[in-house]
């Protein structure tokens, strides 16, 4: 094989390699991203927040009528609210988390609304507490479903 032939073959191989690298780069760069990355830490925090909310309401339901005053539970209300705010804050720092942020904001607004009702009226009846707890469980559920759904993102 002459030097010219070797040089031509080498040039062709280089062209193929360059083309392949370019196409791969373009295709890899085209990976579609519609949702944030899954976070096991956030999933645990959501489970913990839902548990704290349930525990707070179950405690109030279990308490006798004269021990359902808002002030007795104000600190625990704050603990849950802080946990929800922390989940919201972490999601606001993530890209592509608009849907999740909306769900967490709805949850926070409702939690605060129910807390204010308790504060304004000082005491709530058991049926009211039970219904508030059921509603809050329903507001927590989509937040957990959203984070769990992210774990189904596949790497290709």
């Amino acid at each position: 094989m002459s030097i010219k032939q070797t040089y031509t073959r080498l040039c062709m191989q280089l062209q193929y390699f360059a083309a392949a690298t370019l196409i791969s780069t373009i295709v890899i760069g085209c990976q579609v991203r519609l949702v944030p990355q899954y976070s096991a830490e956030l999933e645990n925090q959501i489970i913990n927040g839902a548990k704290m909310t349930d525990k707070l309401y179950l405690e109030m339901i279990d308490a006798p009528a004269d021990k359902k005053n808002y002030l007795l539970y104000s600190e625990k209300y704050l603990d849950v609210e802080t946990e929800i705010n922390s989940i919201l804050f972490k999601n606001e720092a993530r890209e592509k988390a608009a849907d999740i942020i909306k769900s967490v904001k709805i949850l926070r607004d409702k939690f605060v609304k129910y807390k204010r009702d308790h504060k304004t009226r000082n005491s709530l009846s058991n049926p009211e507490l039970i219904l508030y707890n059921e509603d809050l469980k329903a507001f927590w559920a989509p937040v957990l479903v959203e984070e769990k759904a992210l774990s189904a993102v596949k790497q290709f």
Partner: protein
Amino acid sequence: MTFNINEVLAEMAGAVKNEVKDDWQSVKITFGNFLQSRKDRLNLLADFRMQGEISEDFFQQRLADEKDIIESELHAIAVINKVAAQNAANAAIAILQKSVEGAVGLI
């Protein structure tokens, strides 16, 4: 190795179909769970109202909040759908990438 665009497109379509099929099951299960919990919640709410244990105003407030629960659930369904769309699109892109790399002899 040759590059047959029709074969590649067919493979890409197959990959999209498979991904959507898997994730559609997830949407169905989630939707069913939301529906069941709504049924239980509304039963409880109606019982308390009929027994006179909650006021009409409290009852109406709960019904109004039910709309916000639905909104939040729809956001969750949207996230599941986005995960499905992302998986489907990236599966298709991976097939295209593999085919192109195969055709130019990189793999």
